[in-house]
């Protein structure tokens, strides 16, 4: 007789016994599923490393991103190659104090990459949050209030039919001056780009949230809440929003990826931040003119953009699998 069969009669009796294993919470299940997705775990670690390196890096690293040498230092420090160049070219101009070399003005590349990463990630996160707030708000409104549904969904369709990249480019040029004057050149462009990306990327979130809200609204617990006189605003915040958190979280991760790519594309086309204010896209754009001589200046920002987006995409994939109860436990 096996162990399980011996325990069987005990469970049938009315005596309360200790369960064999402690009850598992929902978040524990999600974590177990997430862990089993190797790509997602790898993506999460990589993203964490990049964020940490970008945030903590400038405090640890000895060179200043904004320092421009003058006079003889300028000649001495400019166009330094990365230190790994010594492997195949012993005569390369390099210095151990500048691990990734310097650019044509003598500014340290690694420091600029860290600084640019801060800006790129900040734009990505801020734009994602704006898009999420807009998308969830419109999605919940459209799903919960029947009167608003038609109007809001037509609005979503219209936004989806707009040519977004050309319009972002146009708006980025047209409103730059006005915002720069009122908030300052860097802050103005930051606000402008975050708003543009946020306003143009809320539609998928809104559609998904609306669909989920439509289904959840008909469930018994919402009916119960309504029957005891809960106000609509409380039903939404206490009962519906927690239940649509998983699609919102998935579109949040994927939203960071698209926001970072859009920001880099804008900077690459020359419609983003001002030249002395590095972002990854801007660094890539600045380096394109001299990429035949200094390919590393193109490669590093490009690799960082791609790695960040790749890690976030894998993270989103894993989250989607982990948060979907139909896939979980399979």
């Amino acid at each position, binding site marked *: 007789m096996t162990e399980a069969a011996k325990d069987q009669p005990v469970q049938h009796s009315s005596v309360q016994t200790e369960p064999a294993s402690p009850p598992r919470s929902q978040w524990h299940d999600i974590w177990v599923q997430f862990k089993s997705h190797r790509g997602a775990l790898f993506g999460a670690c990589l993203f964490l490393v990049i964020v940490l390196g970008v945030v903590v890096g400038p405090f640890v690293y000895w060179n200043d991103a904004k320092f421009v040498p003058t006079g003889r230092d300028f000649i001495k420090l400019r166009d330094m190659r990365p230190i790994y160049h010594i492997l195949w070219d012993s005569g390369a101009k390099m210095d151990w104090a500048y691990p990734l070399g310097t650019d044509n003005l003598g500014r340290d590349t690694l420091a600029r990459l860290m600084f640019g990463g801060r800006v790129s990630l900040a734009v990505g996160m801020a734009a994602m949050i704006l898009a999420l707030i807009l998308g969830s708000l419109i999605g919940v409104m459209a799903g919960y209030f029947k009167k608003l549904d038609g109007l809001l969904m037509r609005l979503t369709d*219209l936004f989806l039919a*707009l040519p977004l990249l050309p*319009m972002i480019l*146009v708006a980025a*040029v047209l409103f730059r001056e*006005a915002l720069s004057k009122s908030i300052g050149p860097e802050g103005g462009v930051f606000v402008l780009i975050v708003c543009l990306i946020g306003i143009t990327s809320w539609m998928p979130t809104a559609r998904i949230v609306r669909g989920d809200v439509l289904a959840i609204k008909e469930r018994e617990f919402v009916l119960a809440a309504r029957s005891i006189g809960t106000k609509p605003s409380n039903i939404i915040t206490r009962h519906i929003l927690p239940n649509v958190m998983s699609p919102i979280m998935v579109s949040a991760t994927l939203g960071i990826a698209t926001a970072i790519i859009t920001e*880099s*594309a804008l900077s*690459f086309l020359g419609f983003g931040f001002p030249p002395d204010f590095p972002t990854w896209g801007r660094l890539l754009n600045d380096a394109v003119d001299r990429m035949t001589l200094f390919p590393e200046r193109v490669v590093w920002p490009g690799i960082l953009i791609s790695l960040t987006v790749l890690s976030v995409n894998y993270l989103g*994939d894993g989250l989607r699998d982990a948060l979907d109860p139909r896939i979980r436990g399979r």
Partner: protein
Amino acid sequence: MLTFTIRRLILAVPTLLFISLVIFLLLELAPGDPMAQVPLTVPPEVKEKMRMALGLGEPVHIRFWKWLVQFFWIEPQVLVDHIFGTTFSQGDLRVISWQTRSPVMDIVVQRLPQTLSVVGTAYIVAILIALPIGIYSAYRQYSWFDQLGTFVSMVGFSVPPFFSGVLVIVIFSVQLGWFPSIYDTTLVVNSWESFVKQLQQMVMPVMVLALQITAQLSRFMRASMLDNLNQDYVRTARAKGLGEYVVVMVHVLRNSMIPVVTVIALGIPSIFGGAIITEQVFKVNGIGQLLIGAIQANDLPMVQTLTFIFAVLIVMFNLIADVLYGILDPRIRYD
């Protein structure tokens, strides 16, 4: 189906009108000044006259109406004149670019072939690569081929075109010297050598664009195949004793293609948008570069027309995708 198509076509008209209004108002709100390039020595009253000559003196709604008339009434007439040699549009004012003082549509027509050849080839190449990869990955799910395919499509998804483009330039034209890094649009294909040259310069932009499209399409194809492979009719087909090739390539593939075809149709307009960046990287003087140049030069009629053309493409292909879905899948009935 026909009534649905007609209803959607009629519904597309207010959508397009609204989009054109949004674009118009966006440009209207913008604080840019077309007279900014005029020298300071020009007296203000002359400047005012120039402004009037550009049509800027009228109120907003009249200018919007005039633009609508020019774009939807006069430009089609010009097209008809061009094809049949008639003279409907003689003496009518067309949408004029502030940059070149020539009709906007003429420039667009000049630039269109470059964009279409690069984008079109990229799209066809991408479909030809993506479909077999998607089919085989789904058929051998979790095999090493599937793992590799999923990883590569994830990478293709994540690497932005302005990096992959620059990367292939560094590798293939700087280090190896196989392909030219700049797309030469003045090249006339009239001999074998020039044809080879044309192929060489098209390889890199096409590959960069195709990588992105392949990544998306193969994911869709794989998911769609996986949905169908476990269906009952597949078991029936196998039980009848049909060969594996017939089961997969005829029964499953035809059903899996339904959503993929609509995705292909939906993707075409966004490809034109993505081509803006690729054209900039490889210096292809197509529509995307025209748009960037027009934005930088504050050439509002050009920007407005080009953005609107992109919007028309999106609305049109959305419609085509919907209709295709209805035709291909008899289970979908819109009426």
